[in-house]
C-alpha cells in the first residue's frame, strides 16, 4: 500500500480484568474517507475509540498518525495530535453559555485572559455550519437534547481536526437533524477529513460510509468497501447469524377494548391531545425532536402532568400528578435515557427489577415473601433472557440490551396495563433489539397496550400498529400500519397540518 493513512491503529489489544476487550485489532482511516465501525455493544468499538481518544492506554499495539508513531495518554494529547471525538454521552456544562461549551478546554485567550467576543463569533460560525439556530451566548441548560447534541458536534468541529470520530452522533437527533448532519459529514469528507463513524443505524451507515469495519467480541471480522458490504452481511457479521423476522409478526385479530384514553390533554408543552390505546395495540408516536413527543410520554406517566383534559384507564377517569400515581393506575414507563432516568447503577440486577414492586408494596410488606422474593424475580429475569453471571451483580455492569430487558421485567412484574416506551432500543445492539421487539409484541398480544415514542423511523413503522405524528405540541395526524417514512415525515414537518399556525404561537 502506497498511501499512508491519516490514522493507522495496528495490533491494538486491551484487557480488563477477566475480559479481553480488544484482541489485536487493526484499523485505519484515510484522509477524505468515512470509515464506519459496526458492532454490537461489547464488541469493542467504544474501547477502541477511548484508546484513540487518550482515555485508555492499550496493552499492546501502536497508533500512527500520518505514519508517525504516537503515544496518547490523556485526551489533551489526542486533541493536540488532531483527533477530535464526538462522544455519545453529552459532556456539556449546563450553566455555561453555548460558546463557553464549544470552547471548553480550548478557550481563546491572550495572556490567560478570555476573548469572549471572538469566541462568540466563532461559535456562531460553527453552529451555522452544523445547521443549528442557536444563540452562542445562551445557556446550555435551556436547550433541548437535540440542540445540545448539535453543540457537541460544533465543539468537535472547532478543533479543525484531521481525524474526526463520531460515536452515535445521531442518537438524540430526529430525522431532519440527522439528515443535516449527514450532509455535513459529506462536506467534511470533501475537505479531506478522515472520519470514523460509529452507528447502529444501518441506513445512515449505508448513506455515508466509504468503508465498513465490523467488530465482534473484541476482534475485527472484516473491513470492506461499502458496495461490498450489504446490510444483511453486516448484520450477520455483527451477530454471527442471520436475523430474520427482525420485527415480530402482527396478530391477525383486531385490537380490543380501550385501555387508555386521553381527551383534550394539555400542559405547557402540549395542546389538545386526544387519542386512545386499545388492548393488544402498539401505538407509535413520531415527530421531530421539538414536536413534544417526549413531553407526551412524560405527561402520560405523570412526570410532567397534564394540566387540562381527561385521562381514563380502563374507562375510569384517573388523575395522574406523579409517576407514582401513574404506576398505581397501571401505566409503566421505560425512559429513553436509561442511565439517567431508569437505572440505579450501583444496585443489583435483581434490585432494579424489583424496584417498582417494592415501591408500590405496603411499607410493611416482607421483602422475602411471594412476588417480592428474589426467587420470583429471578425466574422472570430468566424468562426475559437477561444475561448476567449473577442477578446479584450490579446492573451497571450489564450491556444496554440486558439493562433494558431488566427494566421491562420491572414493569412486567408490576403487571402494568400500559407501558410507555421512549426510544426503546437507543444504543442497543441488533440482537437485543429483536428480543425487545418480541417482548413488546408479546406484551401487547397478552391483551395490554403500549405507547412507543421513537426517533428511529424504521423501528416505529416496523413495530407500531398505528402511528401518531406530533408537531408543535399537537397530534398532527394518525397513520395506519404500513405507512411510509415519507408520510410520517410530511406530518412531522407540519405540511399536512390543516390548522393555522398562529393558534399555537
Amino acid at each position: 500500500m502506497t498511501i499512508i493513512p491519516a490514522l493507522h491503529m495496528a495490533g491494538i489489544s486491551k484487557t480488563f480484568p477477566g475480559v479481553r476487550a480488544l484482541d489485536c485489532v487493526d484499523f485505519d482511516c484515510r484522509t477524505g474517507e468515512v470509515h464506519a465501525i459496526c458492532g454490537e455493544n461489547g464488541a469493542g468499538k467504544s474501547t477502541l475509540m477511548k484508546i484513540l481518544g487518550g482515555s485508555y492506554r492499550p496493552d499492546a499495539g501502536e497508533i500512527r498518525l500520518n505514519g508517525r508513531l504516537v503515544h496518547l495518554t490523556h485526551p489533551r494529547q489526542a486533541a493536540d495530535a488532531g483527533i477530535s471525538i464526538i462522544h455519545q454521552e453529552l459532556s456539556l456544562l449546563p450553566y455555561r453559555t453555548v460558546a463557553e461549551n464549544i470552547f471548553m478546554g480550548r478557550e481563546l485567550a491572550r495572556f490567560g485572559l478570555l476573548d469572549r467576543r471572538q469566541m462568540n463569533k466563532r461559535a456562531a460560525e460553527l453552529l451555522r455550519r452544523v445547521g443549528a439556530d442557536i444563540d452562542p451566548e445562551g445557556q446550555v441548560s435551556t436547550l433541548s437534547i437535540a440542540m445540545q447534541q448539535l453543540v457537541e458536534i460544533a465543539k468537535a468541529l472547532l478543533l479543525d481536526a484531521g481525524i474526526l470520530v463520531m460515536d452515535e452522533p445521531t442518537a438524540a437527533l430526529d430525522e431532519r437533524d440527522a439528515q443535516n448532519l449527514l450532509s455535513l459529514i459529506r462536506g467534511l469528507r470533501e475537505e479531506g477529513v478522515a472520519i470514523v463513524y460509529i452507528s447502529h443505524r444501518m441506513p445512515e451507515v449505508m448513506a455515508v460510509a466509504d468503508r465498513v469495519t465490523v467488530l465482534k467480541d473484541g476482534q475485527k471480522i472484516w473491513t470492506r468497501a461499502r458496495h461490498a458490504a450489504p446490510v444483511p452481511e453486516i448484520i450477520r457479521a455483527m451477530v454471527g447469524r442471520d436475523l430474520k423476522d427482525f420485527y415480530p409478526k402482527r396478530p391477525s385479530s383486531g385490537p380490543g377494548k380501550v385501555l387508555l384514553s386521553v381527551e383534550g390533554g394539555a400542559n405547557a408543552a402540549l395542546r389538545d391531545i386526544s387519542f386512545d390505546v386499545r388492548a393488544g395495540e402498539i401505538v407509535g408516536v413520531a415527530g421531530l425532536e421539538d414536536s413534544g413527543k417526549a413531553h407526551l410520554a412524560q405527561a402520560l406517566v405523570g412526570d410532567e402532568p397534564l394540566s387540562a383534559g381527561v385521562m381514563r384507564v380502563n374507562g375510569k377517569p384517573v388523575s395522574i400528578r406523579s409517576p407514582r400515581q401513574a404506576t398505581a393506575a397501571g401505566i409503566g414507563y421505560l425512559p429513553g435515557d436509561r442511565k439517567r432516568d431508569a437505572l440505579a447503577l450501583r444496585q443489583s440486577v435483581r434490585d432494579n427489577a424489583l424496584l417498582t414492586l417494592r415501591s408500590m408494596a405496603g411499607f410493611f410488606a416482607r421483602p422475602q415473601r411471594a412476588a417480592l422474593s428474589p426467587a420470583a424475580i429471578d425466574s422472570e429475569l430468566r424468562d426475559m433472557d437477561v444475561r448476567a453471571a449473577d442477578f446479584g451483580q450490579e446492573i451497571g455492569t450489564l450491556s444496554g440490551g440486558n439493562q433494558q430487558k431488566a427494566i421491562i421485567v420491572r414493569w412486567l412484574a408490576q403487571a402494568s396495563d400500559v407501558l410507555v416506551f421512549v426510544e426503546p432500543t437507543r444504543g442497543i445492539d441488533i440482537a437485543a433489539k429483536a428480543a425487545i421487539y418480541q417482548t413488546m409484541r408479546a406484551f401487547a398480544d397478552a391483551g395490554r397496550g403500549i405507547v412507543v415514542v421513537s426517533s428511529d423511523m424504521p423501528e416505529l413503522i416496523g413495530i407500531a400498529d398505528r402511528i401518531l405524528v406530533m408537531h408543535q405540541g399537537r397530534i398532527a395526524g394518525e397513520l395506519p400500519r404500513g405507512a411510509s417514512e415519507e408520510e410520517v415525515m410530511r406530518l412531522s414537518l407540519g405540511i399536512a397540518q390543516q390548522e393555522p399556525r398562529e393558534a399555537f404561537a
Partner: protein
Amino acid sequence: MSSNAISMEPASFNHRKGLPIAAVLAILSAGFFVVIALATGESAQLSLQGIVGLLQRMVALGLVAIGQTFVILVGSIDLSVAALISAVAVLASLLMQGDPAMILPAIIACLGLCLAVGLVNGALVAYGGINPLIATLGTGLIIQGVLAASFADLQGAVARQFQVLAYGGMLGIPYSVLLLALLALAAAFILNKTLFGARIYAVGGNPDGARLAGIHTERLVLAAHVIASLFAGAAGLYLAARLQSGTPWIGRDGIYDLESIAVTVIGGTILAGGKGGVAGTLAGVLLFASLDASFNMLGIDAFLKQVLRGGIVIAAVAIHAVRYKGHVA
C-alpha cells in the same frame, strides 16, 4: 457531588429578567441593616464609621468564603479551613514574637503552610479519589489535633506594625476591608475573565466532559484546593493581626468551615459545582454580617439569635433552591 445530567429546566427560569441572586441578597441584607438601625434609633451605625464597622465584620468570613467558592465551584468542598486558620494565626504569632523584621518571613512561612495543606487536600481529592468531605474533615482534624497538642498555652504576638493590617486604614477605610475588596475583585476577575476561571467552571460543571475536552481536571481540583487554603491563610493572617496573637481555637470558635460553606451556598453557588460566583458569596457574607450587627442593635439574646440564624440559613437557600426541578440530597 456532581452529575452529568443536564437539567432541562423550563427556559423561563434561566432567562429570568431581573437582578441576579447576588444583587438581590446584597440589597436585602443592607436594607435590613438600615431599617433596624433606624428603628432602634442607632442612626450612628449608618455613619461612615458604622458602615466601616459592618464591612469589617465581613473580612474574615469573606476571605475564607471566597476560597471556599473556588473549591465548591470545582465540585469539591473544604472542611479543613477552620483548623488551617487557627494554624496560620498561631504560626504567625509564633514566628513574629513581636519582631517587625519577622513580618515578611512569617507571612511567607504561613502561606507556605497553606500551600502544603492545599496540596495535600487537593491530592487526596483529585488523585486519591477520596470524598472531599472526608478528606478535608480528616486533614482538618489532623491539623487541629497537632495544634492543640503542641500549642495548648501559646505565648507570642504578632508585630505591632503587622496589626496595621487590621487596625490601620486610609481615607477612613481599613486596609483589611480594602484587602477583602481587592482579593474579591481579583477572584471575580479570575473566575470570569481568565482561561483558568473558565476551566474551573468546566471541571465543576461536568468533570467527565472537561476531561474529554482535554482539560487536566485533577490539576484544577488541586489548584482550587490550594486557592482555598491560601484564602484561609489570608483570613488567618488577618485574624492574627486583629487579635494580636493566635490561639489554636480561633478557627473552630468562629465556625469558619460550616459558615463559609453556608454563605457560599446562600450566594447561589451550587454544591455540585459549575455554577455560582464570588459576588453571590460576598452577598451571603454581607447577610451574615448585617444579621450580626442588627441582632446586636435589637438586643436579641444569644440563644434566640442562633435559632434565627438557623432559620435564615435554610430560608435563604430555599428561596433559590425551591425552583430546582431535580432532586437534591
